[in-house]
């Protein structure tokens, strides 16, 4: 097998300065909540790492996750690091098509057996194999075949991580997540609709650096990015504490940048790094743009109540059932009173 160049060699060839590279390592250490003493280790590991083979499988998805990754302001060091990964199979980005593309996937699997990473975006339909196929292969068959020799799997986006929009009620294709199918390999979930580019690259960087999975939460998400809620880190939080809420999208409160809780913000129950890492090279995030958080990195966010309904709203049925309960109360009260009157009359009679 031809010896792959190290990431350090590739970065040098791309003209990335030492200062720029160390800055990236420091940023990565910071967002992964690692101590500064780990920066040299990250730098050393990245510089000396052989380009790991990455196979990116796209199933029932909208390509938003790939768009997010490729729309990171270019050129960035993260982008170059991604260049430094040997992306051997990716529908949207690869030049090859048809048999050639499939041959590239098989070649990457054979050459890097047991060492390659599989990145998956999109959910997998189990309702009918024909719902989604690639080169005539059903998604579930391709996933099982590709994952068999992988070192680890990264489920990119909420569809791959939790079923996402294809899995939303009534789930017409029988869509499932990667973790529903892959039980014998380490799986990292990087949900979001789409996930933050920096989060995707940092997760890969950490795997590249330490060769092991990061600390994960109960949903398999890296704690470094999904350990805190949007609400906890939101710059509008002081307005929540002061009880100042925008009531509509164009009222005075909205113009003054008040809290969007009343407009349905799911920030308090959403674990993601949007409020700190932000989007578009740290420009802003949805709440900063004036829209409530939809909770897109949480399981079943699509079916989790109305997007514009405050979190504190109860989910009641129609008022008819409540009116029925009131009528039942009246009837019970009347029966109880009648019984009381009988007792009273008996007492008066008997003394």
């Amino acid at each position, binding site marked *: 097998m031809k010896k792959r160049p190290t990431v350090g060699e590739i970065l040098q060839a791309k003209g990335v300065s030492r200062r720029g590279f160390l800055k990236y390592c420091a940023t990565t250490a910071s967002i992964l909540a690692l101590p500064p003493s780990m920066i040299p280790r990250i730098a050393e590991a990245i510089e000396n790492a052989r380009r790991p083979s990455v196979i990116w499988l796209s199933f029932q998805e909208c390509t938003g996750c790939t768009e997010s990754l490729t729309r990171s302001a270019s050129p960035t060091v993260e982008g170059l690091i991604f260049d430094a990964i040997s992306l051997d199979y990716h529908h949207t980005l690869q030049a090859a098509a048809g048999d050639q593309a499939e041959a590239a996937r098989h070649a990457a699997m054979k050459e890097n057996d047991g060492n390659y990473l599989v990145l998956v975006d999109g959910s997998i339909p189990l309702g009918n194999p024909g719902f989604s196929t690639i080169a005539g292969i059903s998604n579930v068959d391709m996933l099982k075949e590709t994952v068999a020799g992988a070192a680890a799997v990264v489920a990119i986006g909420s569809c791959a991580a939790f079923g996402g929009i294809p899995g939303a009620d009534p789930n017409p294709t029988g869509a499932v997540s990667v973790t529903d199918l892959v039980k014998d390999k380490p799986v990292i979930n990087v949900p979001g609709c789409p996930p933050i580019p920096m989060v995707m690259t940092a997760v890969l960087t950490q795997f590249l650096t330490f060769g092991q999975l990061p600390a994960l939460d109960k949903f398999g998400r890296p704690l470094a990015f999904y350990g805190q*809620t949007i*609400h906890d880190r939101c710059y509008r939080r002081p307005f*929540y*504490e*002061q*009880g100042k*809420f925008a009531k509509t999208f164009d009222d005075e409160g909205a113009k003054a940048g008040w809290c969007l*809780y*009343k407009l349905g913000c799911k920030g*308090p*129950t959403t674990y993601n790094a949007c409020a700190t890492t932000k989007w578009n090279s740290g420009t802003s995030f949805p709440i900063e743009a004036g829209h409530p958080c939809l909770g897109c990195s949480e399981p079943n966010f699509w079916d*989790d*109540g109305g997007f514009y*309904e*405050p*979190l*504190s*709203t*109860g*989910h*009641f*049925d129609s*008022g008819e*059932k*409540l009116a029925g*309960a*009131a009528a*039942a*109360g*009246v009837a*019970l*009260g*009347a029966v*109880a*009173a*009648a019984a*009381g*009157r009988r007792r*009273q*009359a008996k007492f008066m009679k008997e003394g």
Partner: protein
Amino acid sequence: MDLLEFAKGPALQVAAYILVAGSIWRIVGILLLKEKPDYSEPRQSGGLLAALKVIYTRSFTASPFKAATMYPKMLAYVMHLGLFAVVLLFVPHIMFFEGFLGFEWPGLPNSVIFFLGVAAVVAGIALLVRRLTNPVLRLISNFDDYFSWFATLFPLVTGLLIPVRIGFHYETLLAIHILSVALLMIWLPFGKLGHTFLVFITRGTTGMVFERRGAKT
């Protein structure tokens, strides 16, 4: 369905049915009871004004008992006013009520609500300590007293813990808080917490009876 969805949906819904049916049962059952015949000559006319007067005057302690009841009375006021503010003036709670009432009212900043909530909890604990240490009170207390205390304080404490977290996630604490509120709603009509909706009916009735008998109210 996760715990929060269960709490916000079926749990709250069943609790609402029980609260409505139970409260109306208690009120209707009492209002439809036959009044005992009073054969004495009425000393005063009685009526609605007498009822309103006692509803007001019983909010304060009569002067001979002021010194003796000052401590529990103050605690009760702190607890009740704190509860009132927390339930009705905390903005996310107002949004909850707005969800089915269709209108809102002004709320208080979270810091004020938090302070009043803590004060209510402290007052509640002090009242329990008094109940447990006073021999007479302990003798006349039963399960209803203790469980009603628990059902009232539990939602307060779980609500106050939400911003503090103590290692739990927001959604877990919110679900526990809503479930504790559901417990309160279910228990409220049947125990001594029934005074929430009976207090003015009973006070008013007392006022009318006393007025008729010529008692000073």
